[in-house]
C-alpha cells in the first residue's frame, strides 16, 4: 500500500498534475492555469511566464512518457534535502531505464552533487563504452538572483559547459524554456538546464506553434532574436533581455545590433555567431558569469580559430559579471552583474563611437 502510494506520488498521472515550480524555488507555488486569449482571425499567441512554460513542458513530457519522473529538493510532493543522495539516485534510476528530471533548488547546491553529475552522469556512456546510457535532466535556477549573496549566486555555465558527455542548455524566453526542457527530457544524453530565478515570473509571448505539445527546440541551435548590421551581441539566459534593451536604445542612435540568443552552451552553435560576424564585423559577448574561463572566452577563442576571424574589424569584447564573489549589499550586487549601460558602453567601445 505504502509502496503503491509512493509510486503514484512520482508518476503524477493524468489529471493529477500538481507539479509546480514555485517562486524562488521554495514550496508554495501556484497551480498552472492555461489562459486562452480571445480568438479572432489571426492565430492567438498568448503571454506565458517562464515558470508556467516550464510547468507546461513537464506536464506534457510526464504525460507522454511514463518513464519520466521528477525528483529533487522540495519538488512536487516529494521532499528530500540530500543533494548528493538524490542526484546519485537519479543517475541510478536513469541507468536502469527511467528518465528522471532532477531538480536542484539552485545550481549552487549542485556543487555538492557535482561528482554524480560529471563523473557518473556525463562520463558513464563513454566509460562503459555505450553499455550504460544516462538519459537524465538536471535542472534548476542558475546564476545571480536578488540578494542571495555569494553562495547562492554563481553561474555554472562555464563549469558544466566544460565537460564532454554533458549537454548544457540555457533558456531565456518562455518559448526557450518550454522547447528546451522538452528537448532535454527527450534527449538520451545527460542534459543540464540552467534556468534563471529572476526570469521565472517574466511573461513572454508564446506563439501558437510553441503552445503545441510537440513543440521542441533543437539542442545546439542558437536563435537570432533581433536582426542587425553593425555589431553582433551574443548572450544567454537573462542577459539576452538586457541585450535586447541595449539594442533598442542603440537603435535610436543609428546603431543596429544583431542579438543572438545562444540557447545552448554545449554543443555551442558557433556557426550562427560566425555567420553573424561575417555580416556585422564586430562582436561582443554578454554573460552573467565570471570572466575567467567563461562562456565569452570560449566564443572568442573559437571565433579566432574559425573563418570569421578574418571578418572582424575590431577585437571582440566580453561583458561579464565582475570577478568577485557576489556581494550581498544591493548597490554592490547591482554593479556586479552586467547592466544595459555596460552593454551599450561595450558596443560603443568596439565600434569606436
Amino acid at each position, binding site marked *: 500500500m*505504502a*509502496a503503491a502510494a*509512493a*509510486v503514484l506520488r*512520482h508518476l503524477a498521472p493524468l489529471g493529477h498534475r500538481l507539479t509546480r515550480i514555485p517562486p524562488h524555488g521554495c514550496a508554495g507555488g501556484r497551480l498552472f492555469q492555461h489562459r486562452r486569449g480571445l480568438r479572432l482571425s489571426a492565430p492567438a499567441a498568448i503571454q506565458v511566464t517562464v515558470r508556467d512554460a516550464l510547468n507546461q513542458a513537464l506536464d506534457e513530457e510526464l504525460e507522454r512518457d511514463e518513464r519520466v519522473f521528477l525528483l529533487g529538493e522540495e519538488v512536487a510532493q516529494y521532499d*528530500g534535502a*540530500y543533494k*548528493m*543522495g*538524490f*542526484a*546519485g*539516485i*537519479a*543517475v*541510478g*534510476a*536513469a*541507468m*536502469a*531505464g*527511467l528518465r*528522471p528530471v532532477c531538480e536542484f533548488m539552485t545550481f549552487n547546491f549542485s556543487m555538492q552533487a557535482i*561528482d*554524480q553529475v560529471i*563523473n*557518473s552522469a556525463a562520463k*558513464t*556512456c*563513454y*566509460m*562503459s*563504452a*555505450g*553499455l*550504460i*546510457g544516462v538519459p537524465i535532466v538536471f535542472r534548476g535556477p542558475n546564476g545571480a538572483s536578488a540578494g542571495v549573496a555569494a553562495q547562492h549566486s554563481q553561474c555554472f555555465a562555464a563549469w558544466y559547459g566544460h565537460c*564532454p*558527455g554533458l*549537454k548544457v542548455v540555457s533558456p531565456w524566453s518562455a518559448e526557450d524554456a518550454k522547447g528546451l526542457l522538452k*528537448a532535454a527530457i*527527450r*534527449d*538520451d*544524453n545527460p542534459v543540464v538546464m540552467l534556468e534563471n530565478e529572476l526570469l521565472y515570473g517574466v511573461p513572454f509571448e508564446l506563439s501558437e506553434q510553441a503552445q503545441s505539445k510537440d513543440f521542441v527546440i*533543437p*539542442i*545546439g541551435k542558437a536563435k537570432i532574436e533581433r536582426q542587425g548590421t553593425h555589431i553582433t551581441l551574443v548572450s544567454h539566459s537573462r542577459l539576452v533581455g538586457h541585450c535586447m534593451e541595449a539594442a533598442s536604445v542603440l537603435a535610436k542612435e543609428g546603431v543596429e545590433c544583431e542579438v543572438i540568443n545562444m540557447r545552448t552552451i554545449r*554543443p555551442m552553435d558557433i556557426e550562427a555567431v560566425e555567420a553573424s560576424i561575417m555580416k556585422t564585423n564586430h562582436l561582443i559577448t554578454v554573460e552573467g558569469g565570471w570572466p575567467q574561463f567563461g562562456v565569452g572566452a570560449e566564443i572568442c577563442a573559437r571565433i579566432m580559430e574559425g573563418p570569421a576571424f578574418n571578418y572582424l574589424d575590431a577585437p571582440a569584447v566580453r561583458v561579464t559579471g565582475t570577478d568577485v564573489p557576489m556581494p550581498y549589499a544591493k548597490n554592490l550586487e547591482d554593479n556586479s552583474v552586467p547592466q544595459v549601460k555596460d552593454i551599450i558602453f561595450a558596443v560603443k567601445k568596439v565600434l569606436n563611437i
Partner: protein
Amino acid sequence: MAALRLLRTRLLRARGCGFGTAEFPEEKPQFPGASAEFAERLEFIQPNVISGIPVYRVMDRQGHILRQSEDPQLPKELVLKLYKTMTLLNTMDRILYESQRQGRISFYMTNYGEEGTHVGSAAALDDTDLVFGQYREAGVLMYRGYPLDLFMAQCYGNSKDPGKGRQMPVHYGCRERHFVTISSPLATQIPQAVGAAYAIKRADANRAVICYFGEGAASEGDAHAGFNFAATLECPIVFFCRNNGYAISTPTAEQYRGDGIAARGPGYGLLSIRVDGNDVFAVYKATREARRRAVAENRPVLIEAMTYRIGHHSTSDDSSAYRSVDEVNYWDKQDHPISRLRHFLLRKGWWDEEQEKSWRKSSRKMVLESFTAAERLPKPAPQLLFSDVYRELPLHLQRQRGALQQHLRRYGQHYPMELFESGGDPPIDEPETPQIQP
C-alpha cells in the same frame, strides 16, 4: 491529587492520546519524528562494540556444519561451482597481479581472502538481479559466467574489450550479465543502486538490486544518502558490505567507533545482519533470505560480511607499510574461504587430492592460455576514441574523426598501426549523416 490526575487522564484520553508509561499512564510523546516512550531517567545509550551484533556462520574453520538445521544443503554441482569459481578467481588474480608487476598491464586489484563473499552472494541471486559493485567483486561476475577472455581483454584494453579500452583494469561491466560497469569514485554506486532499485520496483518485476561496498566506502556521504533513501523509498535492494578490515591503509579501528556497519542499519530502518564472510554457506543463506525479503516486501536489507583482505589494496599499494606480514599469514592459513570449503568438500567425499591437483593444473592452464591470447590481440581501433561521448556522434567529433582518418591514410606508415585493430571507418568521401537530434 488523585482526583486531579484522574481528571487529566480522562481529558487526555478524550483527546485521543494513547497509553503512556506505567508510571505516567496518561502521556505519550506526540512528536512527528519519533514514536517511543518518555524516559524520566537521564541515561545515554552506549555504543555496544564489545558484544555487538553477532556474526552468523554455518561452518567452522574446518568446514564442519555446526547446526544441521542451518545446512543449506546445496547440491553437489552447485558447491563444486562455488569452489571452482573461487579457485579460478584466485588463480587469475595471481597471474594478473604478476603481469602488472612485469609491466604488462598498468594496474590490478586482487580479491584474495574475499572470494567467499563474491560467490556466496552471487549464487544466492537470480541471474537478472542487477549488480552494482565497488571494485573487489570480480567473483560475482565470474560466477555469472563472464569468460576469462573478457576479464583479460578489459585488463589489457585490447580489441576484444567490450569496454573499448576506456577504463583502468578491473573496471568490468557486462550488460548481459546485469553487472553495472565499475566506476572509480568511491561509494557513488550506492545511491545509484537505490535509484535503479526504485526503477525496478516501478517495473514490478521479480528483480532485486545488490550493491556491494567496503566498510571504508560506508563512511562516505553517499552511503548515508543511499541507505536513507532506500528505506524511505521502499526499494528492493540488498546492501552488501564487505568489511575486510582495511580501507587501503586505514584499519577498521580508525574507520569507525561504532559496532561496524551492521549496527548502522537499524538506524535507517534497514533489516540488518552480520555474517562470517569467509563462510560461503553463511553468505549464501543470508543473501538468499535478504533477497527474498527485499523483493517480497519492497524493503532494503543490509548484510555486513566480515572477512579479511589478504592482498594489498591494489598494485599501487604495499600493505607491509601498515600491517604485519604475520597478520596476513594468519588469515591466509587459518581462515580462508577456499580452505574452509575445501575441508567441507573433502569430508563430504565430493572432492579429493587428485582432483585438486588436476584442477589446479587445468585452471592455471586455462588462465595462462587466455592471458597469452589476450596479450597478442591488437588494441582497439583509434576511431573508437570518438564514440560514446554522447549517444550520437556530434558534428565536431565527426570532423575530428574524419581528420584523423585522413591523416592516417596519408601518414599511417609512420605509426605502429599493426598494434591496433583496423577498420570501422566510414568512407572518406561520404560524410556521415549527423545523427544529432533535430
